């Protein structure tokens, strides 16, 4: 027995393949949308992974440092280091702002990292070029998504920084690239705006009679100096010694330091449950609609394709072809179309995903789920079409 499905496809394979490509692009769009959704969630997780922390210590009763502003004294980390179970504690600041270079102006999350060696919490965990920061001021490590090259001089607030290293996938939960600079510079950037603002602030202070007293020389200078310092950081990142449970250590810090501490699962809940929840739901709903529409279109195309063969089906029935054979021919064609469509869709999605401005994550589980969905839809659609086809009365082929 020859393969009727194979012969039919071969006979008009151009149209068949084109139909498959059309289906494939639709499937590719759906897979990509799933990738966009997963990419959003992954951005949130990447932020937590990249910080290298097991506990986040933030201002009491805030959801900081990502979901809400949080301010701690920059010497709080010293007492946290003394808590049992803490192996490393490092200050960190986060501020989303514009970073300028000669050619471009990028929205980035500027991260202030404490001095130390590679492995300090907050430091980028791996680089794709260059080196980690070695100087205590005016050096930066930027994510490739920002578009800076090694050696570029970028301006952050009032100072220029030389890009000495590049990272990948170091992004904020919103997908903004991160730029790492020394903590002291970041504290100053968070606090001191531009020179005009600094001058205005000095002027205001010197006009205040409480601070500008002739009988106390040096008072005004002392006040201005204290106002120009920023002793705050946004969070302290903590790593634990092996063998200590994060909940226990978090509890100790909360109790004795009167700060709020979040463990990794809690932080994930905040980031994904609060920060990106709305956007994720938005995309999630669109994904569902897209998937349903894609399924309907695939089903429709297969149904139409089958109905176009009604004449041949009637003749086959007439000359004695079993229903089973006819049904198998239709289903094979539908599945073949589905396979081609799926392959084209996966290939297309993989090729165009890197060009999206935000991260698109194509996970194998989505691919496999998509594959099974396509197969099921093709089978169901072909079954409906087969039913229609087999109802054709071969007697109609014999004219009146």
């Amino acid at each position: 027995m020859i393969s009727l499905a194979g012969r039919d496809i071969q006979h008009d394979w151009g149209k068949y393949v084109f139909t498959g490509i059309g289906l494939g692009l639709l499937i590719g769009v759906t897979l990509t949308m799933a990738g966009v959704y997963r990419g959003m969630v992954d951005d949130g997780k990447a932020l937590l992974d990249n910080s290298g922390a097991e506990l986040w210590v933030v201002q009491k009763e805030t959801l900081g440092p990502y979901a809400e502003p949080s301010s701690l004294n920059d010497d709080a980390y010293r007492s946290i280091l003394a808590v049992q179970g803490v192996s490393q504690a490092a200050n960190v600041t986060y501020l989303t702002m514009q970073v300028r270079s000669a050619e471009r102006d990028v929205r980035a999350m500027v991260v202030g990292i404490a001095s130390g060696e590679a492995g300090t919490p907050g430091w980028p965990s791996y680089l794709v070029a260059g080196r980690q920061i070695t100087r205590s001021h005016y050096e930066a490590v930027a994510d490739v998504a920002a578009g800076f090259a090694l050696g570029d001089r970028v301006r952050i607030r009032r100072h220029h920084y030389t890009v000495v290293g590049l990272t990948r996938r170091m992004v904020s939960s919103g997908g903004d690239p991160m730029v790492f600079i020394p903590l002291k510079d970041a504290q100053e950037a968070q606090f001191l705006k531009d020179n005009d603002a600094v001058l205005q602030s000095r002027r205001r202070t010197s006009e205040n009679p409480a601070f500008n007293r002739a009988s106390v020389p040096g008072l005004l200078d002392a006040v201005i100096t204290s106002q120009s310092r920023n002793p705050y950081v946004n969070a302290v990142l903590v790593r634990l010694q092996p063998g200590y449970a994060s909940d226990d250590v978090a509890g100790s810090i909360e109790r004795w330091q009167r700060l709020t501490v979040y463990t990794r699962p809690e932080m994930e809940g905040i980031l994904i449950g609060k920060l990106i929840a709305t956007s994720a739901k938005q995309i999630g709903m669109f994904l569902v609609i897209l998937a349903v529409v894609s399924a309907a279109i695939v089903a429709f195309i297969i149904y139409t394709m089958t109905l176009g063969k009604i004449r041949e089906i009637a003749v086959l029935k007439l000359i004695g072809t079993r229903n089973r054979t006819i049904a198998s021919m239709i289903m094979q064609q539908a599945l073949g179309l589905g396979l081609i469509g799926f392959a084209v869709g996966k290939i297309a999605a993989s090729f165009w995903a890197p060009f999206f401005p935000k991260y698109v994550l194509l996970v194998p589980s989505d691919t496999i789920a998509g594959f099974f969905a396509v197969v099921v839809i093709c089978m169901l659609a072909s079954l409906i079409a087969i039913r229609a086809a087999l109802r054709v009365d071969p007697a109609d082929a014999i004219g009146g």
Partner: protein
Amino acid sequence: MSTGIRIEGLKKRYGEGDTAVDALKGVDMYVAPGEVVGLIGPSGSGKSTLLKCLGAVIEPTSGRMTLGDEVIYDNGWKIKDLRALRRDKIGFVFQAPYLIPFLDVTDNVALLPMLAGVPNGIARKRAVELLGALDIAHRAAGMPSQISGGEQQRVSIARALVNRPPVILADEPTAPLDSARALTVIQILHEMAHRYETAIIVVTHDEKIIPTFKRIYHIRDGKTEEEVGEGRVITGAEHG
């Protein structure tokens, strides 16, 4: 070794009660192996109904049908698998060739034995033989869209013959053809009937070919009447 087709007292009623229509009111027919008979009747005479019963496409109401040496209907189907019956015992030739467009000529013919379980190689050999007998072996590898209408019709005849069915039902096979080609087709049918000992019933009202039949059945109002035909033999000069 077939013994043609015999029909006795075949009746077919459509519908029930007051609206019932008796399309066939007791038809008797016999066609011997190797014989080509004509079946002539106006529309509404029950011609199509008779053809459908003969082709085991619809179920008669009562009567008896014998095909070869097998009783296929005796006030009820005696055969379980009608599809296999149609495939193996009855050949169809229509007005239009109705070839499968995506199979080449050989496979169009070989499909029938393949459906019956015959190995592909043997099926194709048989097909090619028949195509040779019908003088179109040179088209064996072509697709139906690449050959002329007359050649397509011959392929459909080959397909009807390939399973060596005891009976072939030809429904207006010459209707769309001009007289030369029509006579060619009828001549082929006669040749094939003779060669393969097949009983062929040709439903037609084509004046051009009626004279070629030795026996003709007229059907009117659901009953048949036998008539002896002219039985004119087609000579080479009348071929197309």
